[in-house]
């Protein structure tokens, strides 16, 4: 049908441009109570007392909930109370829940809750947290229940440590003629999805728990409510409609738990919690921060021999997914380079900051900022072209990754080809700096990227396909439509396989964990890969059932039949056929006899041959493939005012076969935009008490229309052989190199090393002050 690569419009397009698309908070709440969260004004404090009397007197208040009686939660380590008890560990932590008839009654009552605190010393950064005299964020770390492969260090603030030990460091340093070492730092920030998180929960008299939530992981909501609260897993039914942006932030399970305990407090009545923006940023989990040290050793001709990396991730007050983020960073710690001798310690460290959720790229844009900035420093020290250094060391089939996975032509994309393509796109040979006069410079910065996934080693995805009487098909998948268009891509895959009109494929957007087959979580750029394979598997099931009925109708062997173009036909005699619609619901013979029935196909795919990482060396295979790419940013820098404008941004990226050209471009450009905003301006601003000063979209500033650069995206195509039609993961990768490319461009333009984010003019000014203009401006 030639549908692969076609820019098919999204299936839910008209819903989204007419306002009929429904997100969680758009479902009527006339039968619902409303909860409001009272949060901590302090980053670290003992809770002395909580006074709820005045709040309870407010008209319409049905319950006031405090945290004494609930189990500890957390995906890797059970370190997080649903509501704070004994002490608070970050600004914005949920302390009390007020449930009332209307949102404004709940708000009024919440304002009357009085909590007495006694402030404790605050842990401000992961580096500070490792100081032997640092206050402990979790005194009871040794007693928490935890998953098997997470390694907290009781008596310290280390929640998890992942080690990479590859080759021999001694040999690596001996082979090195040039050594560079750089330190990096940035604070936590936020996803700032336009839809703030929203959850409703109700508990019916029969014990069934119904939850509707804006989540990337409704099946994980089901699993965790079962594990935390002991509810039978089959009695938990989670629904997720369309989700208004997620970027990893809605992969954490948090607000659902609050909605659940709120419903428990009012006898199972339905309760809705819709985050206000401030609490969406502070109370729900945020984007992780990082302090990093990168040391590289190379021969004089630019072959990197050794890498020593220390990543101290700012996991914040609770480990939840932070203790998985540090692991993922270790897996790809070197960036996309072939390095024989690697030592990396990647830590998730407790601080008194808001705690971390996954963020698009899952710690990769963060680690790549550190590694790719260091690559530029190394290139300069070697006197070598920055892209040439990257080209020489680029990871290739036959090389091994830091966790010692041997790469081949299928499981890694073609990085050298991406670098070559980028060079042409950015006119690299014309130089990195152009003097425009009037104190203005045009400057280019580059970065390379790679990423695999580190999700559960047996994570899977299921799909069911059911026919309608007209031969059209209902496609039901557990992938959440968070904006990536994956469910439209699945329809393309199905239409291509069955050689049918894509308009005859009806995609169910909403997910219901009781009736939708499970997709592990809609994360890690694994939607199209896993669900795509599941669609193909379900399509085979449909085809074999169609052939089976048609073989009776046509009185031929099923093996001689083909399916396509709305027909089941004889391979060697296509005019002998039966229409799909005449067998899709079973077949009725002229005398009234019926055979078959509605054909329902099912398929699934589970990740295969992945392994856990060895505790001491990190050896193991965490993900199925690596997408790679090369990126650049071109800025216009004002030498006088130290300000800059991002003029153009570039990606040459290998995402394998492109299934939907415009959708893929949209994913890459949108991710680039988010990466530029993260690198250039977004951060939580903390005061000396660890309070976040800017939890609003007027003080925390994402990119706005008109501040966007021109985007230039080109694809290099190295098919992944085990993926549906060869498509690689693509949802995150556009983001990954943007902070580093921006940092590299600005460091070159300003003549100072800019190793902290975000890259605001004030930071450039400070660095210039510190270095005393020792690097004469260019």
């Amino acid at each position, binding site marked *: 049908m030639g549908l692969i690569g076609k820019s098919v*419009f999204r299936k839910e397009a008209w819903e989204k*441009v*007419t306002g009929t698309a429904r997100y969680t908070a758009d479902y009527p709440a006339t039968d619902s109570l409303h909860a409001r969260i009272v949060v901590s004004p302090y980053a670290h404090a003992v809770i002395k007392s909580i006074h709820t009397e005045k709040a309870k007197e407010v008209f319409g208040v049905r319950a006031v909930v405090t945290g004494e009686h609930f189990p500890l939660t957390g995906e890797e380590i059970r370190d997080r109370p649903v509501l704070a008890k004994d002490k608070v560990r970050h600004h914005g932590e949920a302390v009390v829940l007020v449930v009332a008839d209307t949102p404004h009654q709940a708000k009024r009552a919440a304002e009357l809750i009085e909590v007495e605190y006694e402030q404790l010393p605050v842990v401000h950064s992961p580096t500070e947290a490792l100081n032997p005299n640092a206050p402990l964020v979790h005194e009871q770390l040794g007693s928490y229940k935890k998953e098997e492969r997470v390694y907290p260090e009781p008596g310290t603030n280390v929640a998890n440590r992942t080690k990479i030990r590859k080759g021999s460091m001694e040999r690596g340093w001996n082979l090195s003629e040039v050594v560079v070492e750089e330190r990096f730092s940035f604070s936590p920030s936020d996803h700032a*999805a*336009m839809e703030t998180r929203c959850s409703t929960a109700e508990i019916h008299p029969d014990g069934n728990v119904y939850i509707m939530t804006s989540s990337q992981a409704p099946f994980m909501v089901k699993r965790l409510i079962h594990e935390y609260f002991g509810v039978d897993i089959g009695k938990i039914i989670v629904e997720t409609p369309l989700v208004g942006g997620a970027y990893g932030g809605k992969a954490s399970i948090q607000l659902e738990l609050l909605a659940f305990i709120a419903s428990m407090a009012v006898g199972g009545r339905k309760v809705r919690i819709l985050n206000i923006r401030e609490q969406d940023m502070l109370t729900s989990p945020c984007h992780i921060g990082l302090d990093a040290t990168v040391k590289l050793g190379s021969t004089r001709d630019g072959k990197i021999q050794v890498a020593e990396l220390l990543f101290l991730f700012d996991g914040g007050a609770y480990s939840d997914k932070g203790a998985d983020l540090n692991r993922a960073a270790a897996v790809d710690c070197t960036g996309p380079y072939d390095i024989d001798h690697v030592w990396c310690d990647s830590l998730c460290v407790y601080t008194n900051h808001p705690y971390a959720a996954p963020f698009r790229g899952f710690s990769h844009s963060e680690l790549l900022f550190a590694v790719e900035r260091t690559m530029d420093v190394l290139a300069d020290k070697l006197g070598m072209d920055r892209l040439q250094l990257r080209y020489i060391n680029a990871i290739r089939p036959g090389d091994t990754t830091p966790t010692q996975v041997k790469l081949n032509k299928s499981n890694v994309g073609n990085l050298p080809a991406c670098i070559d393509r980028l060079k042409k796109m950015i006119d690299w040979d014309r130089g990195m700096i152009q003097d425009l006069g009037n104190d203005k410079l045009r400057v280019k910065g580059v970065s390379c990227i790679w990423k695999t996934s580190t999700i559960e080693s047996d994570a899977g995805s299921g799909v069911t396909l059911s026919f309608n009487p007209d031969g059209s098909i209902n496609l039901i998948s557990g992938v959440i439509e968070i904006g990536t268009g994956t469910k439209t891509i699945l329809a393309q895959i199905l239409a291509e396989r069955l050689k049918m009109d894509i308009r005859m494929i009806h995609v169910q957007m909403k997910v219901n964990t009781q009736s939708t087959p499970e997709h592990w979580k809609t994360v890690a750029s694994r939607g199209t890969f896993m669900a795509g394979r599941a669609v193909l598997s379900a399509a085979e099931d449909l085809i074999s059932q169609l052939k089976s009925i048609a073989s009776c109708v046509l009185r031929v062997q099923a093996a001689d039949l083909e399916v396509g173009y709305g027909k089941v036909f004889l391979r060697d005699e296509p005019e002998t056929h039966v229409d799909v619609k005449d067998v899709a619901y079973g077949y009725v013979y002229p005398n009234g006899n019926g055979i078959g029935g509605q054909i329902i196909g099912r398929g699934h795919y589970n990740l295969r041959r992945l392994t856990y990482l060895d505790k001491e060396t990190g050896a193991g295979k965490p993900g199925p493939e690596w997408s790679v790419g090369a990126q650049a940013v071109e800025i216009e820098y004002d030498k006088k005012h130290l300000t800059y404008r991002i003029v153009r941004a570039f990606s040459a990226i290998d995402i394998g076969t492109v299934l939907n050209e415009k959708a893929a471009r949209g994913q890459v450009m949108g991710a680039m935009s988010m990466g530029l905003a993260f690198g250039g301006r977004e951060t939580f601003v903390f005061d000396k008490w660890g309070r976040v000063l800017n939890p609003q979209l007027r003080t925390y500033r994402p990119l706005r229309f008109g501040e966007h650069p021109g985007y230039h995206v080109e694809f290099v195509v190295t098919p992944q052989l085990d993926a549906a039609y060869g498509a690689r993961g693509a949802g995150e990768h556009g983001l990954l190199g943007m902070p580093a490319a921006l940092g590299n461009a600005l460091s070159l333009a300003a003549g100072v090393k800019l190793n902290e984010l975000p890259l605001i003019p004030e930071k450039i000014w400070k660095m210039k002050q510190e270095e005393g203009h020792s690097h004469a401006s260019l």
Partner: protein
Amino acid sequence: MISARLTVNDEEREVAFRPSDTLLFVLREKLGLTGAKPGCLNGDCGACTVNVNGTAMKSCLMLGVEGVNQTILTIEGLKDSPIQHAFIEHFAFQCGYCTPGFIMNINSLLKKHPNADDSTIKEFLSSNICRCTGYQEIEKAVKSLLKINREDKAGLQNDE
């Protein structure tokens, strides 16, 4: 509670609400018009944008009572508009949450400035945030709708 008549999408609706309820709250919770979205309740994100007498307004910054005797157009009242077609054709949305706000903002922009220049487009659209796209697609969609770029030269839907 007060009772008032609001003219929304060419229909006169009688609705009871609190004097302090925002227009956004009244539209969503009282009239069931959930196309306008809450994003910040603070005027920062533009997801709640509607047209009031043809002007793009953030409905979280207006009280419901301020909507009385005004002509209010929400995304639900926009039928088969060229803007909707352009958004689809240019892939100008992903998650779709900011989309009604952007479309209503553009509806007002193009009626006031059918041949808006870049700075006018920026002035209007910088009051909305899209977190999924890189804005380039939205820019292309808007520019395709400028009168000078349109073959059919047809007018945009009027709410008056």
